Protein backbone atom coordinates (compact mmCIF):
# COMPACT_ATOMS: atom_id res chain seq x y z
CA UNK A 1 0.00 0.00 0.00
CA UNK A 2 1.16 3.49 -0.79
CA UNK A 3 2.26 5.66 2.02
CA UNK A 4 1.06 9.22 2.19
CA UNK A 5 3.37 11.38 4.19
CA UNK A 6 1.28 13.83 6.10
CA UNK A 7 2.78 17.26 6.29
CA UNK A 8 2.48 17.18 10.08
CA UNK A 9 4.19 13.83 10.39
CA UNK A 10 6.95 15.31 12.53
CA UNK A 11 4.68 17.46 14.67
CA UNK A 12 5.52 15.35 17.68
CA UNK A 13 9.27 15.98 17.89
CA UNK A 14 10.88 18.60 20.07
CA UNK A 15 12.43 21.85 18.96
CA UNK A 16 12.21 25.56 19.76
CA UNK A 17 9.96 25.92 16.71
CA UNK A 18 7.65 23.12 17.85
CA UNK A 19 7.23 24.57 21.30
CA UNK A 20 6.44 28.01 19.93
CA UNK A 21 2.79 29.04 20.36
CA UNK A 22 1.10 28.20 17.06
CA UNK A 23 -0.81 31.48 16.87
CA UNK A 24 2.30 33.56 17.38
CA UNK A 25 4.17 31.28 15.00
CA UNK A 26 1.52 31.73 12.34
CA UNK A 27 1.54 35.50 12.56
CA UNK A 28 5.33 35.83 12.72
CA UNK A 29 6.03 33.39 9.91
CA UNK A 30 3.37 34.90 7.65
CA UNK A 31 4.90 38.30 8.35
CA UNK A 32 8.32 37.01 7.40
CA UNK A 33 6.94 35.43 4.23
CA UNK A 34 5.26 38.68 3.24
CA UNK A 35 8.44 40.59 3.88
CA UNK A 36 10.51 38.18 1.77
CA UNK A 37 7.96 38.19 -1.04
CA UNK A 38 8.09 41.97 -1.09
CA UNK A 39 11.89 42.13 -1.12
CA UNK A 40 13.10 43.86 -4.29
CA UNK A 41 16.81 43.32 -3.88
CA UNK A 42 18.32 39.92 -4.58
CA UNK A 43 20.68 40.22 -1.61
CA UNK A 44 17.68 40.58 0.66
CA UNK A 45 16.01 37.59 -0.96
CA UNK A 46 19.17 35.56 -0.38
CA UNK A 47 19.19 36.67 3.22
CA UNK A 48 15.51 35.73 3.52
CA UNK A 49 16.18 32.30 2.08
CA UNK A 50 19.07 31.89 4.47
CA UNK A 51 16.78 32.74 7.40
CA UNK A 52 14.21 30.24 6.19
CA UNK A 53 16.80 27.48 5.91
CA UNK A 54 18.16 28.34 9.34
CA UNK A 55 14.67 28.15 10.89
CA UNK A 56 13.97 24.83 9.21
CA UNK A 57 17.30 23.59 10.50
CA UNK A 58 16.39 24.66 14.04
CA UNK A 59 13.06 22.80 13.74
CA UNK A 60 14.81 19.41 13.69
CA UNK A 61 12.56 18.08 10.96
CA UNK A 62 14.57 15.41 9.12
CA UNK A 63 16.07 16.64 5.88
CA UNK A 64 14.93 13.56 4.04
CA UNK A 65 11.32 14.36 4.86
CA UNK A 66 11.67 17.93 3.62
CA UNK A 67 13.43 16.54 0.58
CA UNK A 68 10.42 14.43 -0.31
CA UNK A 69 8.20 17.47 -0.36
CA UNK A 70 10.68 19.69 -2.13
CA UNK A 71 11.06 16.95 -4.69
CA UNK A 72 7.65 17.77 -6.08
CA UNK A 73 7.96 21.49 -5.62
CA UNK A 74 11.37 22.19 -7.13
CA UNK A 75 10.32 21.35 -10.72
CA UNK A 76 7.56 23.87 -10.26
CA UNK A 77 9.99 26.58 -9.19
CA UNK A 78 12.31 25.60 -12.00
CA UNK A 79 9.48 25.99 -14.46
CA UNK A 80 8.92 29.56 -13.36
CA UNK A 81 12.64 30.20 -13.38
CA UNK A 82 12.94 29.14 -17.01
CA UNK A 83 9.86 31.00 -18.15
CA UNK A 84 11.09 34.19 -16.52
CA UNK A 85 14.60 33.68 -17.82
CA UNK A 86 13.41 33.85 -21.39
CA UNK A 87 10.54 36.26 -21.18
CA UNK A 88 11.86 39.22 -19.25
CA UNK A 89 12.82 41.93 -21.73
CA UNK A 90 16.33 43.36 -21.48
CA UNK A 91 19.75 43.38 -23.09
CA UNK A 92 20.41 39.93 -24.48
CA UNK A 93 23.66 38.31 -23.39
CA UNK A 94 22.97 34.93 -24.88
CA UNK A 95 20.46 33.52 -27.29
CA UNK A 96 19.23 30.06 -28.08
CA UNK A 97 17.45 30.07 -31.46
CA UNK A 98 14.99 32.91 -31.12
CA UNK A 99 15.01 33.02 -27.31
CA UNK A 100 17.07 35.65 -25.56
CA UNK A 101 18.51 35.56 -22.09
CA UNK A 102 19.11 38.91 -20.50
CA UNK A 103 20.81 40.09 -17.33
CA UNK A 104 17.46 41.42 -16.21
CA UNK A 105 15.95 38.01 -16.90
CA UNK A 106 18.53 36.20 -14.82
CA UNK A 107 18.14 38.71 -12.03
CA UNK A 108 14.36 38.55 -11.89
CA UNK A 109 14.20 34.79 -12.34
CA UNK A 110 16.67 34.28 -9.47
CA UNK A 111 14.91 36.80 -7.27
CA UNK A 112 11.52 35.25 -7.76
CA UNK A 113 12.63 31.63 -7.40
CA UNK A 114 14.51 32.56 -4.26
CA UNK A 115 11.40 34.19 -2.80
CA UNK A 116 9.26 31.21 -3.76
CA UNK A 117 11.66 28.76 -2.28
CA UNK A 118 11.96 30.70 0.96
CA UNK A 119 8.19 31.11 1.26
CA UNK A 120 7.53 27.43 0.67
CA UNK A 121 10.14 26.44 3.22
CA UNK A 122 8.58 28.76 5.77
CA UNK A 123 5.06 27.53 5.00
CA UNK A 124 6.36 24.01 5.46
CA UNK A 125 7.86 25.06 8.77
CA UNK A 126 4.55 26.50 9.90
CA UNK A 127 2.48 23.46 8.95
CA UNK A 128 5.09 20.84 9.76
CA UNK A 129 5.84 21.77 13.34
CA UNK A 130 2.37 21.36 14.85
CA UNK A 131 -0.46 18.93 14.35
CA UNK A 132 -2.68 20.16 11.56
CA UNK A 133 -5.78 20.31 13.72
CA UNK A 134 -3.81 22.45 16.16
CA UNK A 135 -2.80 24.78 13.36
CA UNK A 136 -6.44 25.07 12.35
CA UNK A 137 -7.40 25.94 15.89
CA UNK A 138 -4.73 28.61 15.83
CA UNK A 139 -6.17 29.96 12.56
CA UNK A 140 -9.59 30.01 14.16
CA UNK A 141 -8.28 31.88 17.19
CA UNK A 142 -6.61 34.37 14.88
CA UNK A 143 -9.94 35.21 13.31
CA UNK A 144 -9.82 33.18 10.12
CA UNK A 145 -13.50 32.70 9.15
CA UNK A 146 -15.00 29.52 10.59
CA UNK A 147 -16.32 28.38 7.20
CA UNK A 148 -12.84 28.54 5.76
CA UNK A 149 -11.39 26.61 8.69
CA UNK A 150 -14.11 23.99 8.22
CA UNK A 151 -13.20 23.58 4.57
CA UNK A 152 -9.56 23.04 5.49
CA UNK A 153 -10.51 20.72 8.32
CA UNK A 154 -12.72 18.46 6.24
CA UNK A 155 -10.27 18.40 3.35
CA UNK A 156 -7.58 17.30 5.74
CA UNK A 157 -9.82 14.75 7.43
CA UNK A 158 -11.29 13.21 4.30
CA UNK A 159 -8.60 13.33 1.66
CA UNK A 160 -6.94 10.25 3.10
CA UNK A 161 -10.29 8.56 3.60
CA UNK A 162 -11.02 9.09 -0.07
CA UNK A 163 -7.65 7.80 -1.21
CA UNK A 164 -8.03 4.74 0.97
CA UNK A 165 -11.56 4.18 -0.21
CA UNK A 166 -10.29 4.05 -3.74
CA UNK A 167 -7.49 1.72 -2.74
CA UNK A 168 -10.03 -0.53 -1.11
CA UNK A 169 -12.10 -0.68 -4.27
CA UNK A 170 -9.02 -1.28 -6.33
CA UNK A 171 -7.84 -4.03 -3.99
CA UNK A 172 -11.24 -5.64 -4.10
CA UNK A 173 -11.10 -5.66 -7.91
CA UNK A 174 -7.59 -6.99 -7.71
CA UNK A 175 -8.42 -10.00 -5.55
CA UNK A 176 -11.17 -10.87 -7.96
CA UNK A 177 -8.76 -11.05 -10.82
CA UNK A 178 -9.06 -7.63 -12.42
CA UNK A 179 -5.88 -6.35 -14.07
CA UNK A 180 -5.54 -2.83 -15.39
CA UNK A 181 -4.93 -2.85 -19.11
CA UNK A 182 -5.50 -0.26 -21.79
CA UNK A 183 -8.53 -1.84 -23.36
CA UNK A 184 -12.15 -0.85 -23.39
CA UNK A 185 -13.23 -3.36 -20.76
CA UNK A 186 -10.55 -2.19 -18.38
CA UNK A 187 -11.45 1.44 -18.89
CA UNK A 188 -15.14 0.79 -18.44
CA UNK A 189 -14.56 -1.11 -15.23
CA UNK A 190 -12.29 1.58 -13.83
CA UNK A 191 -14.85 4.17 -14.81
CA UNK A 192 -17.49 2.30 -12.86
CA UNK A 193 -15.21 2.03 -9.87
CA UNK A 194 -14.62 5.77 -9.88
CA UNK A 195 -18.38 6.26 -10.21
CA UNK A 196 -18.96 4.11 -7.15
CA UNK A 197 -16.34 6.14 -5.33
CA UNK A 198 -18.32 9.30 -6.07
CA UNK A 199 -21.59 7.73 -4.95
CA UNK A 200 -19.95 6.45 -1.78
CA UNK A 201 -18.43 9.84 -1.02
CA UNK A 202 -21.75 11.51 -1.62
CA UNK A 203 -23.53 9.15 0.73
CA UNK A 204 -20.77 9.40 3.28
CA UNK A 205 -21.07 13.17 3.23
CA UNK A 206 -24.84 13.01 3.79
CA UNK A 207 -24.46 10.53 6.62
CA UNK A 208 -21.73 12.62 8.18
CA UNK A 209 -23.88 15.70 7.90
CA UNK A 210 -26.64 13.83 9.74
CA UNK A 211 -24.17 12.83 12.42
CA UNK A 212 -23.14 16.45 12.77
CA UNK A 213 -26.66 17.82 13.06
CA UNK A 214 -27.52 15.01 15.46
CA UNK A 215 -24.90 16.43 17.74
CA UNK A 216 -25.95 20.03 17.42
CA UNK A 217 -24.07 21.30 14.38
CA UNK A 218 -25.52 24.67 13.43
CA UNK A 219 -23.03 25.84 10.84
CA UNK A 220 -20.20 26.62 13.22
CA UNK A 221 -17.63 24.11 14.35
CA UNK A 222 -16.61 24.56 17.94
CA UNK A 223 -13.49 23.07 19.37
CA UNK A 224 -11.70 23.32 22.64
CA UNK A 225 -8.28 24.78 22.28
CA UNK A 226 -5.74 25.90 24.70
CA UNK A 227 -3.11 28.40 23.76
CA UNK A 228 -0.85 30.16 26.17
CA UNK A 229 1.82 32.67 25.37
CA UNK A 230 4.81 32.65 27.66
CA UNK A 231 7.82 34.92 27.62
CA UNK A 232 9.85 32.67 25.36
CA UNK A 233 7.02 32.67 22.83
CA UNK A 234 7.11 36.46 22.82
CA UNK A 235 10.88 36.48 22.35
CA UNK A 236 10.70 34.08 19.41
CA UNK A 237 7.89 36.08 17.85
CA UNK A 238 9.74 39.35 18.21
CA UNK A 239 12.86 37.80 16.71
CA UNK A 240 11.13 36.51 13.60
CA UNK A 241 8.82 39.48 13.20
CA UNK A 242 11.86 41.72 13.76
CA UNK A 243 13.62 39.90 10.95
CA UNK A 244 10.68 40.63 8.70
CA UNK A 245 10.68 44.30 9.59
CA UNK A 246 14.44 44.49 9.27
CA UNK A 247 14.37 43.05 5.75
CA UNK A 248 11.94 45.74 4.69
CA UNK A 249 13.83 48.41 6.58
CA UNK A 250 17.11 47.61 4.90
CA UNK A 251 15.37 47.52 1.55
CA UNK A 252 13.84 50.90 2.21
CA UNK A 253 16.95 52.63 3.47
CA UNK A 254 19.79 51.19 1.39
CA UNK A 255 18.37 49.88 -1.83
Amino acid at each position, binding site marked *: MLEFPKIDKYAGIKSPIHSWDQRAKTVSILLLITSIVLAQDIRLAVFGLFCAILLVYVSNIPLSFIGRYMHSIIPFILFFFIILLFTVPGKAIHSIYFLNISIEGIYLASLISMRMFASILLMFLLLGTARFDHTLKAFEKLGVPNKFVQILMFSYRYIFVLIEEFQRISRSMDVRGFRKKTNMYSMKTLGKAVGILFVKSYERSIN*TYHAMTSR*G*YDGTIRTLSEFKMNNIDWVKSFMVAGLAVMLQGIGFVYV
Partner: protein
Amino acid sequence: MPDIAVEVEALSYKYPDGNLALDNVSLSASPGELIALLGPNGAGKSTLLLHLNGILKGEGSIRIFGEDIKNKKRSKIIEKIGIVFQDPDDQLFMPTVFDDVAFGPLNMGLSKQEVKMRVESALKKVGLKGYEDRCPHNLSFGEKKKAAFATILSMEPEIIILDEPASNLDPQSSRALFKIIKELKDKGKTIIIATHDIGIVPEIADKIYILDHKIIAEGTPRQIFSDADLLKKTNLEAPKITMLFEILTCFGYNCNDLPLSIDEAITHLTQSIETKGGHMHLHIHEHTHNEIKKITKKYGHHK
Protein backbone atom coordinates in the same frame (compact mmCIF):
# COMPACT_ATOMS: atom_id res chain seq x y z
CA MET B 1 -42.40 13.51 33.78
CA PRO B 2 -44.63 12.12 31.01
CA ASP B 3 -45.09 8.39 31.23
CA ILE B 4 -43.90 7.66 27.70
CA ALA B 5 -40.40 8.55 26.58
CA VAL B 6 -40.55 7.49 22.95
CA GLU B 7 -43.72 6.84 21.06
CA VAL B 8 -43.83 5.91 17.41
CA GLU B 9 -47.24 5.73 15.82
CA ALA B 10 -48.11 4.26 12.44
CA LEU B 11 -44.78 5.13 10.90
CA SER B 12 -44.21 4.25 7.26
CA TYR B 13 -41.17 5.08 5.21
CA LYS B 14 -40.28 4.50 1.60
CA TYR B 15 -36.72 5.04 0.39
CA PRO B 16 -36.46 7.26 -2.68
CA ASP B 17 -35.84 4.17 -4.81
CA GLY B 18 -39.32 2.91 -3.94
CA ASN B 19 -38.18 0.41 -1.32
CA LEU B 20 -40.81 0.30 1.43
CA ALA B 21 -38.59 -0.08 4.49
CA LEU B 22 -41.14 0.61 7.23
CA ASP B 23 -44.78 -0.27 7.04
CA ASN B 24 -47.11 1.09 9.69
CA VAL B 25 -44.72 0.66 12.60
CA SER B 26 -45.77 1.54 16.14
CA LEU B 27 -43.67 1.25 19.24
CA SER B 28 -43.34 2.82 22.63
CA ALA B 29 -40.78 3.05 25.41
CA SER B 30 -41.43 4.21 28.95
CA PRO B 31 -38.83 6.31 30.74
CA GLY B 32 -36.06 4.10 32.08
CA GLU B 33 -37.03 1.20 29.89
CA LEU B 34 -34.63 -0.70 27.70
CA ILE B 35 -36.09 -1.79 24.40
CA ALA B 36 -34.40 -4.30 22.12
CA LEU B 37 -35.22 -4.13 18.47
CA LEU B 38 -34.65 -7.46 16.77
CA GLY B 39 -35.15 -8.58 13.22
CA PRO B 40 -33.40 -10.03 10.19
CA ASN B 41 -30.94 -8.11 8.04
CA GLY B 42 -32.69 -5.50 5.99
CA ALA B 43 -35.71 -5.47 8.28
CA GLY B 44 -35.64 -1.70 8.63
CA LYS B 45 -34.14 -1.44 12.12
CA SER B 46 -31.61 1.21 11.20
CA THR B 47 -34.21 3.02 9.14
CA LEU B 48 -36.55 3.15 12.11
CA LEU B 49 -33.85 4.43 14.46
CA LEU B 50 -32.90 7.20 12.05
CA HIS B 51 -36.44 8.52 12.35
CA LEU B 52 -36.28 8.94 16.09
CA ASN B 53 -34.30 12.16 16.07
CA GLY B 54 -35.68 13.48 12.84
CA ILE B 55 -32.94 12.50 10.37
CA LEU B 56 -35.42 10.62 8.21
CA LYS B 57 -38.98 11.83 7.96
CA GLY B 58 -41.64 9.26 7.18
CA GLU B 59 -45.38 9.25 7.44
CA GLY B 60 -46.81 8.85 10.90
CA SER B 61 -45.93 10.50 14.15
CA ILE B 62 -43.08 10.32 16.63
CA ARG B 63 -43.37 11.76 20.09
CA ILE B 64 -40.54 12.28 22.51
CA PHE B 65 -41.73 12.78 26.09
CA GLY B 66 -45.17 13.46 24.72
CA GLU B 67 -44.16 16.09 22.19
CA ASP B 68 -44.34 15.53 18.47
CA ILE B 69 -40.86 16.01 17.05
CA LYS B 70 -42.34 17.72 14.00
CA ASN B 71 -43.17 20.70 16.19
CA LYS B 72 -39.85 20.81 17.96
CA LYS B 73 -36.64 22.55 17.10
CA ARG B 74 -33.92 20.15 16.07
CA SER B 75 -31.56 21.46 18.73
CA LYS B 76 -34.15 20.68 21.42
CA ILE B 77 -34.60 17.13 20.13
CA ILE B 78 -30.95 16.26 20.03
CA GLU B 79 -30.38 17.33 23.61
CA LYS B 80 -32.92 14.73 24.66
CA ILE B 81 -32.05 11.94 22.28
CA GLY B 82 -28.64 10.70 21.21
CA ILE B 83 -28.12 8.24 18.40
CA VAL B 84 -25.12 6.03 17.70
CA PHE B 85 -25.08 4.92 14.08
CA GLN B 86 -24.42 1.40 12.91
CA ASP B 87 -21.44 2.53 10.85
CA PRO B 88 -18.94 4.42 13.03
CA ASP B 89 -17.32 5.95 9.97
CA ASP B 90 -20.49 7.97 9.56
CA GLN B 91 -20.32 9.16 13.13
CA LEU B 92 -16.76 10.36 13.45
CA PHE B 93 -15.68 13.36 11.46
CA MET B 94 -13.36 15.53 13.50
CA PRO B 95 -9.57 15.50 13.17
CA THR B 96 -9.02 13.98 16.61
CA VAL B 97 -10.92 11.67 18.93
CA PHE B 98 -10.97 14.37 21.60
CA ASP B 99 -12.53 16.93 19.28
CA ASP B 100 -15.07 14.41 18.12
CA VAL B 101 -16.22 13.51 21.62
CA ALA B 102 -16.19 17.20 22.61
CA PHE B 103 -18.23 18.22 19.56
CA GLY B 104 -21.68 17.57 21.03
CA PRO B 105 -21.05 19.04 24.49
CA LEU B 106 -19.51 22.17 22.95
CA ASN B 107 -22.56 22.66 20.76
CA MET B 108 -24.70 22.36 23.87
CA GLY B 109 -22.90 25.40 25.18
CA LEU B 110 -21.30 23.76 28.18
CA SER B 111 -18.31 25.31 29.90
CA LYS B 112 -14.78 24.40 28.95
CA GLN B 113 -14.23 22.63 32.24
CA GLU B 114 -17.45 20.65 31.96
CA VAL B 115 -16.70 19.62 28.37
CA LYS B 116 -13.27 18.39 29.30
CA MET B 117 -14.64 16.41 32.20
CA ARG B 118 -17.31 14.80 30.07
CA VAL B 119 -14.89 13.88 27.31
CA GLU B 120 -12.50 12.36 29.77
CA SER B 121 -15.19 10.36 31.51
CA ALA B 122 -16.80 9.19 28.24
CA LEU B 123 -13.49 8.01 26.83
CA LYS B 124 -12.63 6.29 30.07
CA LYS B 125 -15.96 4.51 30.13
CA VAL B 126 -15.59 3.05 26.67
CA GLY B 127 -11.98 2.13 27.32
CA LEU B 128 -10.35 4.66 25.01
CA LYS B 129 -8.37 6.58 27.56
CA GLY B 130 -5.19 7.83 25.94
CA TYR B 131 -6.75 7.97 22.47
CA GLU B 132 -7.52 11.71 22.69
CA ASP B 133 -5.09 12.81 20.01
CA ARG B 134 -5.59 9.93 17.60
CA CYS B 135 -7.24 10.55 14.27
CA PRO B 136 -10.56 8.67 14.32
CA HIS B 137 -9.99 7.53 10.78
CA ASN B 138 -6.95 5.51 11.77
CA LEU B 139 -8.62 3.55 14.55
CA SER B 140 -9.58 -0.10 14.22
CA PHE B 141 -13.23 -0.80 13.53
CA GLY B 142 -13.93 -1.83 17.12
CA GLU B 143 -12.14 1.24 18.45
CA LYS B 144 -14.22 3.39 16.13
CA LYS B 145 -17.39 1.81 17.50
CA LYS B 146 -16.27 2.67 21.00
CA ALA B 147 -15.37 6.21 20.01
CA ALA B 148 -18.73 6.64 18.30
CA PHE B 149 -20.46 5.57 21.49
CA ALA B 150 -18.37 8.04 23.47
CA THR B 151 -19.47 10.93 21.25
CA ILE B 152 -23.03 10.35 22.46
CA LEU B 153 -22.18 9.44 26.05
CA SER B 154 -20.52 12.82 26.48
CA MET B 155 -23.81 14.54 25.64
CA GLU B 156 -25.62 12.64 28.41
CA PRO B 157 -29.01 12.51 26.67
CA GLU B 158 -32.15 11.18 28.37
CA ILE B 159 -32.80 8.76 25.52
CA ILE B 160 -30.05 6.78 23.89
CA ILE B 161 -30.45 4.99 20.58
CA LEU B 162 -27.87 2.36 19.71
CA ASP B 163 -27.63 0.62 16.37
CA GLU B 164 -25.64 -2.59 16.73
CA PRO B 165 -23.37 -1.14 19.40
CA ALA B 166 -21.40 -4.34 19.93
CA SER B 167 -20.78 -5.54 16.39
CA ASN B 168 -17.07 -6.16 15.81
CA LEU B 169 -16.19 -5.71 19.46
CA ASP B 170 -14.05 -8.34 21.09
CA PRO B 171 -15.89 -10.36 23.78
CA GLN B 172 -14.44 -8.40 26.70
CA SER B 173 -15.19 -5.05 25.13
CA SER B 174 -18.67 -6.17 24.26
CA ARG B 175 -19.26 -7.16 27.89
CA ALA B 176 -17.90 -3.84 29.05
CA LEU B 177 -20.14 -1.99 26.64
CA PHE B 178 -23.27 -3.75 27.84
CA LYS B 179 -22.21 -3.05 31.38
CA ILE B 180 -22.17 0.66 30.56
CA ILE B 181 -25.56 0.31 28.94
CA LYS B 182 -26.91 -1.37 32.06
CA GLU B 183 -25.50 1.40 34.22
CA LEU B 184 -27.15 4.00 32.03
CA LYS B 185 -30.40 2.15 32.39
CA ASP B 186 -30.00 2.05 36.16
CA LYS B 187 -29.56 5.81 36.06
CA GLY B 188 -33.00 6.04 34.50
CA LYS B 189 -32.04 6.57 30.87
CA THR B 190 -34.35 5.24 28.20
CA ILE B 191 -32.49 3.05 25.75
CA ILE B 192 -33.39 1.52 22.42
CA ILE B 193 -30.97 -0.99 20.93
CA ALA B 194 -31.03 -2.69 17.57
CA THR B 195 -28.94 -5.81 17.84
CA HIS B 196 -28.31 -9.32 16.59
CA ASP B 197 -26.66 -10.29 19.87
CA ILE B 198 -29.37 -12.62 21.19
CA GLY B 199 -27.35 -13.77 24.17
CA ILE B 200 -27.32 -10.36 25.82
CA VAL B 201 -30.89 -9.31 25.14
CA PRO B 202 -32.63 -11.17 28.00
CA GLU B 203 -30.04 -9.82 30.42
CA ILE B 204 -30.73 -6.21 29.67
CA ALA B 205 -34.02 -5.76 27.83
CA ASP B 206 -37.37 -5.02 29.41
CA LYS B 207 -39.21 -5.36 26.16
CA ILE B 208 -38.50 -6.73 22.73
CA TYR B 209 -39.92 -5.66 19.41
CA ILE B 210 -39.42 -7.87 16.41
CA LEU B 211 -39.38 -5.88 13.23
CA ASP B 212 -39.52 -7.08 9.68
CA HIS B 213 -40.72 -3.95 7.88
CA LYS B 214 -43.75 -4.29 10.16
CA ILE B 215 -43.79 -5.00 13.86
CA ILE B 216 -44.11 -8.78 13.91
CA ALA B 217 -44.21 -9.23 17.65
CA GLU B 218 -43.82 -7.39 20.91
CA GLY B 219 -43.25 -8.79 24.36
CA THR B 220 -40.95 -9.54 27.26
CA PRO B 221 -37.85 -11.59 26.51
CA ARG B 222 -39.59 -14.60 28.02
CA GLN B 223 -42.62 -14.26 25.78
CA ILE B 224 -40.54 -13.78 22.67
CA PHE B 225 -37.92 -16.44 23.25
CA SER B 226 -40.38 -19.15 24.14
CA ASP B 227 -42.17 -18.79 20.84
CA ALA B 228 -40.17 -21.11 18.62
CA ASP B 229 -42.28 -20.56 15.52
CA LEU B 230 -41.90 -16.82 15.78
CA LEU B 231 -38.15 -17.12 16.18
CA LYS B 232 -37.82 -19.33 13.13
CA LYS B 233 -40.03 -17.08 11.02
CA THR B 234 -37.88 -14.05 11.81
CA ASN B 235 -34.39 -15.53 11.42
CA LEU B 236 -33.92 -15.44 15.18
CA GLU B 237 -32.80 -17.94 17.75
CA ALA B 238 -33.28 -18.46 21.45
CA PRO B 239 -30.19 -17.81 23.60
CA LYS B 240 -27.81 -20.78 23.72
CA ILE B 241 -28.34 -21.17 27.44
CA THR B 242 -32.08 -21.58 26.88
CA MET B 243 -31.46 -24.27 24.30
CA LEU B 244 -29.14 -26.07 26.67
CA PHE B 245 -31.73 -26.13 29.42
CA GLU B 246 -34.41 -27.35 27.08
CA ILE B 247 -32.09 -30.20 26.16
CA LEU B 248 -31.50 -30.86 29.85
CA THR B 249 -35.24 -31.44 30.25
CA CYS B 250 -34.85 -34.43 27.93
CA PHE B 251 -32.48 -35.89 30.51
CA GLY B 252 -35.11 -35.46 33.17
CA TYR B 253 -34.24 -31.99 34.46
CA ASN B 254 -37.40 -30.35 35.71
CA CYS B 255 -37.81 -26.94 34.24
CA ASN B 256 -40.92 -25.05 33.26
CA ASP B 257 -39.55 -21.54 32.80
CA LEU B 258 -36.39 -22.04 30.80
CA PRO B 259 -33.62 -19.67 31.91
CA LEU B 260 -32.76 -17.02 29.35
CA SER B 261 -29.46 -15.86 30.81
CA ILE B 262 -26.55 -17.20 32.82
CA ASP B 263 -27.85 -15.45 35.92
CA GLU B 264 -31.24 -17.05 35.59
CA ALA B 265 -29.61 -20.40 34.94
CA ILE B 266 -27.61 -20.15 38.14
CA THR B 267 -30.68 -19.25 40.16
CA HIS B 268 -32.63 -22.07 38.60
CA LEU B 269 -29.96 -24.69 39.15
CA THR B 270 -29.39 -23.60 42.72
CA GLN B 271 -33.07 -23.72 43.55
CA SER B 272 -33.83 -27.04 41.95
CA ILE B 273 -30.78 -28.71 43.46
CA GLU B 274 -31.52 -27.29 46.89
CA THR B 275 -35.10 -28.57 46.83
CA LYS B 276 -33.76 -32.01 45.88
CA GLY B 277 -31.58 -32.14 48.96
CA GLY B 278 -28.31 -31.03 47.38
CA HIS B 279 -28.23 -33.38 44.40
CA MET B 280 -29.36 -33.38 40.82
CA HIS B 281 -30.46 -36.48 38.98
CA LEU B 282 -30.22 -36.75 35.26
CA HIS B 283 -30.82 -39.91 33.31
CA ILE B 284 -31.24 -41.32 29.86
CA HIS B 285 -34.37 -43.24 29.00
CA GLU B 286 -35.59 -44.66 25.72
CA HIS B 287 -37.18 -41.46 24.43
CA THR B 288 -34.30 -39.18 25.30
CA HIS B 289 -32.62 -39.25 21.90
CA ASN B 290 -35.82 -38.63 20.03
CA GLU B 291 -36.70 -35.75 22.27
CA ILE B 292 -33.32 -34.18 21.79
CA LYS B 293 -33.68 -34.57 18.06
CA LYS B 294 -36.99 -32.78 18.21
CA ILE B 295 -35.49 -29.90 20.09
CA THR B 296 -32.43 -29.49 17.90
CA LYS B 297 -34.73 -29.62 14.90
CA LYS B 298 -36.94 -26.97 16.39
CA TYR B 299 -33.93 -24.69 16.71
CA GLY B 300 -32.68 -25.59 13.27
CA HIS B 301 -29.59 -27.35 14.65
CA HIS B 302 -30.26 -30.77 13.12
CA LYS B 303 -27.36 -32.30 11.26
